[in-house]
């Protein structure tokens, strides 16, 4: 994809060691506005480490992560002030966890979960917050009548939808997703993927999606990074990587998908 605008997020030489054990090594890539980047690889290949490093949740041992802020242009997310970074994380960014329990406030209703980010940036009108929550439940295809129910009473798929709604309510520009469909059964997965694809297209969101499921990657992402042992072994357009893998490991990964 050729774009005139600067990249939204660029990682350069991101390396993370856990007590001497490499989590990821020398990972560099860019994410452009409106682009969905998939990161695939086997368990332990460093996918989640990379995701955490670029989403300001885990400072890399070396390397830089730059984000194009709305007002001040590209800024290193680990060099900006903490208030600025935290504000960014709850307005411009979203983070969807594999386990919705990590991303949701399980003790308060669905409406409060969606409204939390709005209240965090200063919304103080109950009616408006409720209206926004209602709209977002509708957008993620949930029954708006369940707005006052606790997330604990929801199915896994609904919790995941709620988590997505909660993240998108402040109109972020980039969403990080860690195995968003990992815990769901196949039919629920398909519907959620359909929803995600729709939302990403409609809202012009950029997204970084970590998954071990190549079908998810093919459906959602424009570009793919293939990781193995902490390193990116191959990158390119999704169809190109999946249909004509060059690296032996990518070839193995693609050939090990079971076709029913």
């Amino acid at each position, binding site marked *: 994809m050729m774009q005139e605008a600067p990249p939204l997020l660029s990682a350069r030489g991101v390396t993370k060691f856990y007590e001497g054990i490499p989590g990821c090594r020398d990972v560099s890539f860019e994410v452009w506005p409106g682009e969905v980047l998939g990161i695939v690889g086997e368990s332990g290949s460093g996918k989640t480490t990379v995701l955490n490093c670029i989403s300001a949740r885990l400072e890399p041992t070396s390397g830089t992560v730059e984000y194009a802020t709305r007002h001040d242009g590209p800024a290193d997310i680990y060099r900006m002030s903490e208030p600025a970074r935290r504000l960014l994380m709850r307005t411009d960014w979203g983070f969807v966890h594999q386990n919705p329990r990590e991303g949701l406030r399980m003790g308060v*209703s669905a409406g409060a979960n969606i409204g939390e980010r709005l*209240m965090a940036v200063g919304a103080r009108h109950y009616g408006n917050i*409720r209206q926004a929550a209602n709209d977002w439940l509708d957008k993620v295809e949930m029954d708006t009548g369940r707005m006052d129910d606790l997330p604990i009473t929801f199915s896994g798929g609904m919790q995941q939808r709620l988590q997505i709604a909660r993240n998108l309510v402040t109109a972020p520009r980039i969403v990080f997703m860690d195995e968003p469909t990992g815990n769901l059964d196949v039919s629920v997965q398909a519907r959620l993927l359909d929803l995600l694809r729709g939302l990403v297209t409609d809202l012009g969101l950029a997204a970084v999606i970590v998954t071990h499921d190549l079908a998810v990657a093919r459906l959602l992402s424009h570009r793919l990074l293939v990781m193995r042992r902490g390193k990116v072994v191959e990158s390119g357009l999704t169809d190109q990587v999946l249909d004509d893998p060059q690296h032996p490991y990518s070839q193995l990964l693609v050939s090990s998908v079971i076709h029913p």
Partner: protein
Amino acid sequence: MAEDGYNFAYLDEQTKRMIRRAILKAVAIPGYQVPFGSREMPLPFGWGTGGIQVTASIIGPDDTLKVIDQGADDTVNAVSIRKFFARTAGVATTEQTEAATIVQTRHRIPETPLGAGQILVYQVPIPEPLRWLEPREAETRKMHALEEYGVMHVRLYEDIARFGHIATSYDYPVRVNGRYLMRPSPIPKFDNPKMDRSPALQLFGAGREKRIYAIPPHTQVRSLDFDDHPFEVQKWADVCAVCGSGESFLDEIVTDDRGGRMFVCSDTDYCARRREAGHTGPATRDAETGGA
């Protein structure tokens, strides 16, 4: 007369200086929780040790002390603490709000408005307003530092979603001087407006949690709310059965096992002196007419 064998007001002078330093810092930063080295007191944590340590550090021989517990001067907590200071400091004690220079309180602010020069000392069980929303202390401190208080509104939102109105009725969160979010100890929200721009100094001591915070005189204290669900205090359909007051905070008292109940002022000093001034309520009127 103070008893022998104790330092004035029980605590040793070094401890009092340490607590006074914490109080000075707390007054300088309204609403900010200052850590301090809370001491073992001769009663358990949770019985008002924070308030007692604050009182012990600021009390002088010329002070007059009033202690209230749920508004009453004659309940066990109030009586014990009053006696404690009468014995260890030999100070004068009173039940009259305006005669006191220091009022130590649990769960109420007196109905009689406090004036300049008076000090109100609160006993605080849990000082951290964000505690039940964020269990990590390091994180709540960061949230205070960065003024990230949106999550407090999540709780109020949840109240309205469930009950149709903000159902939190005590320990109602406030912003002090437009900056720090503060827990006013478990006073009813009825008392929240009394904290706003009060001419008296308000000190808060949490003994078990080892925190002191303060509201200096004439400081703005605003209760959190929503634009379309403004802050409101409790209202009663009844008046006090004893003194007939329609303005004070009323306790509901069950009088028999056949559903009989009556409402009386929680502030005993306020109620008794209204009686002395000749006010009567439904119960006292009945008794008088019945006796006549």
